């Protein structure tokens, strides 16, 4: 099967790739475009380590074909900071010790980024439900909840 030429916006930059239809978006991001922040933690679409933002929605990039991203607007963890300044969700994960090994963190950050746009002032229960597509082995989630709460307050104050 012939490769297909796709173009999309990645962290504000126009990018292109030549992909086989069967190539998963997560592999194209990591292997062709060298954006290795998004991770792979499973093959059954559960863990959310590959979560990125596509057209203003959180998506697991392991469960989407790269050809389907043609024309999309994508944000990955590499695009969260602006001019070297951490985004509020990044700073909050640091301040609240919301990560240890850091493997789930890029997916957690992208999900938190989008979740706080969907629900800017969530309750703890809202956060746990809103982050339920992202697994973490290290933190026990408690400090991730605190980080999202802190990021919510920061963003509200801005």
């Amino acid at each position, binding site marked *: *099967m012939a490769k*297909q030429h796709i173009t999309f916006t990645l962290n504000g930059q126009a990018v292109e790739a030549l992909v*086989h*239809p*069967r190539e*998963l978006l997560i592999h194209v991001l990591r292997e062709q475009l060298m954006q290795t922040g998004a991770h*792979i933690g499973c*093959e*059954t*679409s*559960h863990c*959310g380590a590959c*979560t990125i933002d596509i057209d203003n*929605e*959180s*998506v*697991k990039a*392991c*469960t*989407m*074909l790269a*050809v*389907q991203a043609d024309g999309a607007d994508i944000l990955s963890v590499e695009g969260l900071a602006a001019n070297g300044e951490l985004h509020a969700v990044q700073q909050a994960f640091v301040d609240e010790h919301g990560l240890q090994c850091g493997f789930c963190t890029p997916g957690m950050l992208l*999900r938190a980024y989008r*979740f706080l746009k969907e629900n800017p002032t969530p309750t703890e229960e809202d956060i746990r*439900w*809103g*982050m*339920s*597509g992202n697994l973490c082995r290290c933190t026990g989630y408690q400090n991730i909840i605190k980080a999202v709460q802190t990021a919510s307050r920061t963003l509200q104050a801005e």
Partner: protein
Amino acid sequence: MIPGVFDYHAPTTMADAIALLAQYGDEAKVLAGGHSLLPMMKLRFAEPAYLIDLNKINELRGISEANGMVRIGAMTTENQLIASDLLAQKCPLIPEAARLVADPQVRNRGTIGGDIAHGDPGNDHPAVMLAVGASFVLAGPAGERTVAADGFFLGTYWTGLEEGEILKEILVPPVTASTGHGYAKLKRKTGDYATAGAAVQLTLNGDVCDSINIGLTNVGACAIKATEAEDVLRGQVITEALILTAAEKAMAMTDPAEDLRGDVEYKTHMAGEMCRRALRQALARAKGGA
């Protein structure tokens, strides 16, 4: 993790999608949200030679009301169901159940049509469709036909979709002020398929149950319409004693598969308990409670 090789098509009209499906026959699969199909392909359980992506067909999206029916495009995502004010007012069981499907990311891609057409007994929408009395518009080379949800689910991964047909839209009759609903889903964790689930929608006329539909999730080869349980309650003033009897009838209609979620006995009893809970909730709501 690595799917087999296939050829990819992304038509922009239903006519083109139907033509492609006719051309490639059973070597082709339609790709909707991709959150059942791609996982199966990544494990090589499914190895279609052609994928026909429906995501660029705008007529398959959207929720509207026409001719006294609520119409849900098959490519409407789970989160769009949850966000719909029209559904919250007219078909509240659907968004309520959608909140129990998978997780936020999956709900941004997974569609109601895909959830139904997959024919997996673990999916939630089939039983919900039985409960709300939905019907499905199926489009194929010979045109469109409309079939009832009751009778559509035939077995595991087996539905009333004929070869070459695509589920186009879901039609749901709107609820009335005296309609109540409930979906009780027992699961091991958020995002898991049900160990057992029950969807109920009933309408009261005074104190008497005028109409009732009960659908059961993941306790048989496909979603089950618990007709024998419905017969216990229809035309009656629903009492706790009748709810217990109806749940026994529902349990007798189940045929669950033993797996890591439990054995046959456990799932059967949980089907009964979910039925009782959904019935109590639906009854309370029909009487005007929350």
